[in-house]
C-alpha cells in the first residue's frame, strides 16, 4: 500500500469578482513509503496549494488524500493538525523559522505538538546537519544556509513518514543549494521518511530518479 495516495483531488478559490478559480485538480498521485519524488512545477502550477492539501493545512473541496492508511479529506481541522504533527515534516522555501526561538528551540517545537519534546534527539538532528555548535543561536545569527539546515532538522524532528519540501533551495546560492539538497535527501533516507519535493530548478530536479511534472499531474495548472 502506498504511503500517500491521492484520488480526484480538487481545490478552488473564490476570486475577488465572485468567480471560482480551480487551483488543484489532480486525478491521481501515489507515493511509496521512503520514496523520494520530485515534482517539477512552474509558478502558478498550484504546487504550494497541492503540498498544503497533503499537509492538511488546507481542506480539499473534493477527492481523497490517503496518508499512511488514514483518509485526510474527511478529517476535522484538529485531526488534520494531529496528523501533521505526527506524520509530516515540512520544509519551506523561506524556511519559516520562528525568529524569537533558538535553533534548538525551533527543532524542539517541530516535535512538541506530535511525539513530544526530546532534547537529545533535537541535538542529534542539529549535529547531523552540522549545527551542534550553534544550538543556542537565533535564526538572525545564522547564515541563510545554516537557517535552511535548521529547517531540515526541524522537519525531521517529529520522526515523520513524509517530508514535504516546497522549493527548499529557492533561497540558496548554487553551492548551498547542492549541499542542502544532498542533506535533505540523506537525512530523509536515514530517518526512513519519504520525500516529496517541489521545485522548478532543473539542477535540483536532475538529482532525482523519479520526477513528475505537476503541470501534467494537475489539470488546473496554467
Amino acid at each position, binding site marked *: 500500500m502506498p504511503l500517500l495516495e491521492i484520488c480526484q483531488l480538487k481545490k478552488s478559490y473564490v476570486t475577488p469578482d465572485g468567480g471560482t478559480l480551480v487551483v488543484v485538480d489532480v486525478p491521481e498521485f501515489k507515493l511509496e513509503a521512503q520514496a523520494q519524488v520530485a515534482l517539477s512545477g512552474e509558478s502558478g502550477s498550484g504546487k504550494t496549494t497541492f503540498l498544503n492539501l497533503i499537509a492538511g493545512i488546507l481542506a480539499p473541496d473534493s477527492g481523497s488524500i490517503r496518508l499512511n492508511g488514514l483518509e485526510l479529506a474527511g478529517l476535522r481541522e484538529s485531526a488534520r493538525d494531529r496528523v501533521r504533527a505526527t506524520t509530516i515534516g515540512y520544509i519551506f522555501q523561506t524556511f519559516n*523559522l*520562528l525568529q*524569537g*526561538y533558538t535553533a534548538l528551540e525551533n527543532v524542539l517545537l517541530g516535535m*512538541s505538538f506530535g511525539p513530544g519534546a526530546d532534547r537529545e534527539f533535537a541535538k542529534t538532528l542539529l549535529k547531523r546537519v552540522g549545527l551542534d555548535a550553534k544550538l543556542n543561536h537565533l535564526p538572525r545569527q545564522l547564515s541563510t544556509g545554516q537557517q535552511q539546515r535548521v529547517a531540515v532538522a526541524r522537519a525531521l524532528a517529529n520522526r515523520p513518514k513524509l517530508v514535504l519540501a516546497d522549493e527548499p533551495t529557492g533561497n540558496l546560492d548554487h553551492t548551498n543549494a547542492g549541499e542542502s539538497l544532498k542533506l535533505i535527501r540523506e537525512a530523509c533516507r536515514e530517518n526512513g521518511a519519504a520525500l516529496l519535493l517541489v521545485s522548478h530548478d532543473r539542477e535540483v530536479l536532475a538529482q532525482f530518479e523519479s520526477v513528475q511534472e505537476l503541470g501534467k499531474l494537475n489539470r488546473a495548472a496554467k
Partner: protein
Amino acid sequence: MTLPLIVAKSLRQHLLSTVVTAASIALAGGLLMAVWVVKTQSNDAFTKQNAGFDAVLGARSAKLQLVLNAIFHLEASPGNLPWTDYEDIAKNAAVALALPIAVGDNYRGYRLVGTTTNLFSVEHAPGRKYRVAEGEEFAAGYMEAVLGSFAARQLKLKVGDKFHPYHGLNFDEKQKHEELYVVTGILEPSNTPADRVIWIPLEGIQNMKGHDAKSAAEISAVLVKLKNPIAGRGLELMYNKQGNRLTFAWPIAQVVAELFGKIAWFDKVLELVAWLVAAVATGSVLASIYNSMNERRRDIAILRALGARAHTIFLAVVLECAAIAVLGMIAAFAVYLGITGVAAHIIRTETGVVLNAFAWHPILAWAPAAMIGLSALAGVIPAVKAYRTNVAENLVPVS
C-alpha cells in the same frame, strides 16, 4: 512545556509592550489593594481606637469634635469646663478613672496636653499602660514634660532637653511662651494618638503666662474610664438629656463610626475610581495584544504548520494575557506597599493611628485573582483572532 515556552517567548519578543502593560496592571492592582486596605484598616483603627478610655466629658458641642480633640488630639477644643465638673464625674460611682486634660499650646506643631500623673496608670490596651521607656514621669506642678514616642522622634528631643512652648494649637514662632520645660521622660510606643503628644502637668497649661486667668480653674475635657462600659448610658442621659451645659461623648467607637458613616460616599468614589483604573489596565492588555496580532500572524501560521492545534494557539494568547497580569500583580505588591506606606506615614503623623501595610487582608488575594482573571478574559478577543488565523496565507513571508 510547549505552552509556557510559547508564552515566555512571545512576552520576550514583545518586551516593551509587555513591560508597559504589566506596569499599568501593577499601578492599577497596587492602587486597588491600597485603597481597600487603607480604607478598611483606617476604619478599624479609628473605630477601635479609644486610647484606653470609654468616654469623654467636655463643653457642650458635637460629640465627634469632642472625641477628635480629646482622644485623637485633632481639631480645636470646643471650650472649657470648670474644675468642679471634673470633681463631680470623678466621684461618680460608675467611673473607674477620670483624667482631666487641658490643651492650648504646642511645640513646633506637636500638641502640649496638660494632665495628671494618673495618665501613667491608664491601660491603653489590655495589660499595657502608658509607660515611660526612658527617663521618668513628670512631677505635678513642675515644668517637666513626657513626650510621646513619635513626637520625641520627630522633634529629636531626648531626656534632659529643654524647650519653650508656643501658644495655640498651631505652631507660630511669634507665639513663644517664656516658660522653659525640661524633658524628663519619653513614653514607650503605644500606637495610639498619645504617641504624638507632649504630656505636661495640668497646671502647666492652666497657669502658662499669657493664658486667660480664669483658665487656671478650668480644663478642656475629662477622659473617662468606666467600671462597666454599659454604665455610660446613665451618664449620657444625665449630661446630654437632662443637662445642657456639657456633652458626654459615649461610646467613643460609635462616635468615630458616625464620622466614617458620613464619609462613606467618599470611600465609594475611591473604590469606583480604583475599579475603573483596574478596568482600563485590563483593557490595555487587550489593546496591546490585539494590536500586535498582525505581526504575530506569521509565527502563529508557522506553529500551526508544525502541528499546533488552533485551540493551543487560542490558549497561548489567553495565557499570555494572564501572564502579563501575573507579572503586573507581582509588581503591584511593591506599588501597594509604596502607597500604603506613604498613607500610613501621613495618617500616623496626623493622627497617631498606626496602619500596618503588611497585615493580611482578603483583597490581597482576590485583587490579584480578579486582575489575572479579567486579563485572561480580555485575552479571549485577540485569542479568537489568533484562532482564526489563516495558516496557508500567512506562511508566505511578509515583505
